[in-house]
């Protein structure tokens, strides 16, 4: 087995058939092409290039509002881009096609390598080549003292190699050893982990779910985890609405701290949690530490204020709105919203509601209103001088028509067709009252904080974490492991093949072959040979043994030349 992975090269041993099946041949060739490293490289590049539009164009999954803006700004281009999936690059057909091909290629690459590697792990290091002096590393130790038969020496060499954690086999007077299987092991672990990560992504999108919603403080606004309670929800294909874990949250407190510059310093939400089978408890969570509820995690995304507006109608009946006003990304939390009172002005005499006497207030909430007009923008994100700036409307709110409208905006159609009329505007500080033309009164009572939440469940997160860890470990093995082989041949004294050794000593010849790019191999080889030369126990006495290490000949010192060798010589050396 070699480390060269250009698969097409393997085609060679295939025997020509008499009647080749064209289709089969085509398929086989395509498969070979697909699993070649060259194809994998090209696919990798395509993947990188394909990802670029995902960062240049707004993406639906990341910022749907920006996509809408883009449509408004580029009315001609946008629909065409949309057709090719440019606003959902990472879910588009072409992006998926590239990575699926890449992963097919990867599997086609891993499977044979895995088989080869398992085989390599089971086979013993191969026998020594005939001529060790042809190997990149070669050394001859002369004057190594031996008394007994050659066998004792091979055992000593083998012992030394084993001590250095080589995998060793002794054949006659030869010792073969190999080391660095970790490289290929790491490589396979790395690539298999990649597949596991992809699997994790798929699992997450099938079995995961997530929802976003807004939660105003106070028990009357508590939220329980059901599909209907989310303003936006994405639920995986294999998730049933009944699968959502039951729990309820009540926001009891929200803390935000800001620097004088307006830069936020701290956000913390405190909630009362009720979970099936567990006593109610209070928990705090913040931006970097979500609330973990077993099968769901709750993340704090943002916050704002919900003004409490109390309206007393012309018959003296009072209703209160506590609707959240939304911030528009403004750091000082200027927010916009509407307080609608569809069920007011019911005549106590008849008990009938007049659909044309509905009331709504639309406008801004400024946590820190400026001292002077214009009252259009807050000056600070906390409530230093809270005020609402509202426009009052009376008429038909258009809510009864059954057309679902936004709860954060008035139905502008009703305004433009005159069914809903503006009856004045005013700025109100906390506690201030505003008496309208018909004697009804609006009071700005105060505010309650709200938070925006994302609730998610991703069943694959553990798999992803574990496979990322494995990926990293495998990667290190693949990058820093080094496969190499050494052989030692011990020629006992008097053996004609060993040249002219002195009487009572033997000749040890060593060869080394780095199987991957490894410039330090020469040094390692030299050290190994020196250790073996010095370590071979000579029964004849220490005098001879001491000289053994010194008489190192051969090319062990020449290793540097190797780093300049053309690419791939090592890999091809087998």
């Amino acid at each position: 087995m070699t480390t060269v992975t250009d698969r097409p090269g393997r085609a060679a041993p295939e025997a020509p058939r008499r009647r080749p099946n064209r289709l089969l041949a085509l398929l086989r060739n395509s498969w070979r092409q697909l699993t070649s490293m060259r194809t994998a490289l090209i696919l990798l590049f395509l993947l990188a290039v394909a990802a670029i539009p995902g960062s240049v164009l707004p993406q639906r999954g990341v910022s749907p509002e920006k996509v809408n803006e883009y449509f408004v700004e580029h009315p001609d281009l946008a629909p065409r881009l949309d057709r090719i999936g440019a606003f959902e690059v990472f879910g588009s057909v072409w992006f998926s096609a590239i990575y699926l091909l890449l992963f097919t290629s990867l599997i086609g690459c891993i499977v044979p390598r895995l088989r080869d590697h398992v085989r390599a792990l089971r086979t013993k290091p191969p026998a020594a080549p005939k001529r060790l002096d042809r190997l990149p590393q070669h050394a001859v130790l002369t004057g190594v003292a031996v008394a007994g038969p050659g066998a004792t020496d091979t055992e000593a060499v083998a012992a030394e190699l084993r001590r250095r954690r080589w995998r060793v086999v002794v054949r006659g007077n030869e010792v073969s050893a190999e080391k660095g299987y970790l490289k290929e092991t790491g490589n396979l672990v790395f690539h298999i982990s990649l597949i596991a990560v992809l699997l994790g992504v798929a699992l997450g999108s099938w079995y995961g779910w997530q929802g976003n919603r807004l939660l105003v403080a106070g028990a009357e606004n508590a939220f329980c985890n059901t599909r209907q309670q989310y303003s936006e929800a994405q639920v995986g294909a294999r998730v049933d609405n009944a699968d959502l874990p039951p729990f309820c949250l009540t926001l009891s407190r929200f803390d935000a701290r800001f620097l004088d510059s307006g830069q936020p310093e701290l956000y913390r939400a405190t909630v009362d949690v009720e979970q099936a089978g567990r006593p109610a408890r209070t928990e705090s969570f913040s931006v970097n530490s979500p609330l973990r509820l077993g099968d769901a995690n709750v993340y704090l995304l943002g916050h704002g204020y919900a003004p409490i507006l109390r309206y007393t109608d012309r018959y003296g009946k009072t209703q209160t709105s506590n609707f959240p006003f939304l911030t528009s990304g403004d750091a000082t939390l200027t927010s916009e919203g509407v307080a609608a009172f569809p069920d007011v002005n019911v005549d106590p005499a008849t008990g009938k509601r007049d659909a044309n006497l509905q009331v709504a207030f639309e406008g801004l909430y400024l946590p820190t209103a400026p001292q002077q007009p214009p009252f259009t923008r807050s000056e600070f994100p906390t409530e230093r001088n809270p005020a609402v700036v509202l426009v009052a409307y009376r008429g038909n709110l258009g809510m009864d028509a059954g057309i679902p409208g936004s709860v954060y905006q008035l139905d502008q159609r009703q305004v433009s067709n005159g069914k809903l009329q503006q009856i004045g505007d005013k700025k109100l500080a906390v506690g201030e009252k505003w008496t309208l033309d018909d004697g009804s009164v609006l009071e700005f009572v105060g505010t309650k904080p709200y938070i925006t939440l994302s609730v998610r469940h991703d069943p694959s997160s553990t798999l992803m974490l574990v496979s990322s860890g494995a990926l990293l470990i495998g990667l290190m093995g693949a990058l820093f492991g080094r496969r190499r082989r050494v052989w030692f041949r011990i020629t006992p004294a008097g053996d004609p093949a060993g040249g002219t050794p002195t009487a009572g000593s033997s000749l040890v010849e060593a060869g080394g072959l780095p199987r991957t790019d490894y410039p330090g191999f020469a040094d390692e080889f030299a050290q190994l040979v020196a250790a073996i030369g010095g370590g071979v126990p000579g029964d004849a006495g220490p005098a001879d043994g001491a000289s053994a290490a010194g008489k190192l000949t051969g090319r062990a010192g020449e290793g540097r030349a190797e780093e300049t060798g053309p690419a791939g010589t090592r890999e091809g050396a087998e």
Partner: protein
Amino acid sequence: MSALSDQLVTFAILAYLVAMICHAVEYALGNARAVVPAAPARELVGAGVGGSGGPVDAPATPAAPARVSRSGDRARLAGRVAVGFTALAAALHLAATVTRGVAADRMPWGNMYEFVLTISLICTVAWLAVLWKRPSLRRLGLFLTLVMVLLLAFAELKLYVEIVPLMPALKSAWFIVHVSTIGFSSAIFLLGAVPAIAFLIRNGYEQGKRSFPYTLAQRLPGAASLERLTFVLHAFSFPIFTFAVIAGAIWAESAWGRPWGWDPKETWAFISWVVYAGYLHARATPSVKRNVATWIAIVGCLTMLMNLFGVNFFFTGLHSYAGM
């Protein structure tokens, strides 16, 4: 403390500038008399690829050997002074970064100015470490100091911000883990581009090209050793970068509720990762030429730069430190 840090940055830029000028002088002197025979033999062992190794193929001028070696001595002196100034600049740079951190009472990675300051510091320190091991690469210092001057001046002029505490989103242990590893690996990748470019020039030179950029390579170390260094730096950095991205994903899970969401920074990290993986594959594949592989590494470096600067300027995402 903050003002001190700013002054130190200015001094560091000056020191880099002097180092750069000394490197340029070394070049000028060295190329005027290109016959200096005694390049450190250890590095220049026969470069295999083009067959023409080392500086041997410079035309043998009959000039007086005394003059030659005097100019060679002077070139070497200039080179040493350049390294000295680089070390001084690194010390000032370190002091500037540390005082900034002390003034802010946190790690100095809270915004882009500080991030660039830290990355470029790591880059210089890593360069000095490489130089320590392989003194013969000294001439590459010209590229490096040039990059440093540009980078720091850019940071000082365009990116500078007053010290402020961290945004709530950045207050996490993962801040240190993720940002330090991203910074470290980015710095090593950036440094890796220096031998990569040098290799491409030198490789052309060794293949007999004698037009403008290639003549710069006359006195550079052998192409093969430059290529090797390129690989070592990238192979060293890649796992750290991988770790940094994973750490980022873990952090994103707790901060933004999802480990990966194709935010522009995430997208470009993915692109860089894929490109560098492509480089490592190309280099491990014998049939891909080494200069093709090296070009991939340079593309990788461009994607990193895009992520460090471009993404912050052109796109808005969760990483731009805006809002909650």
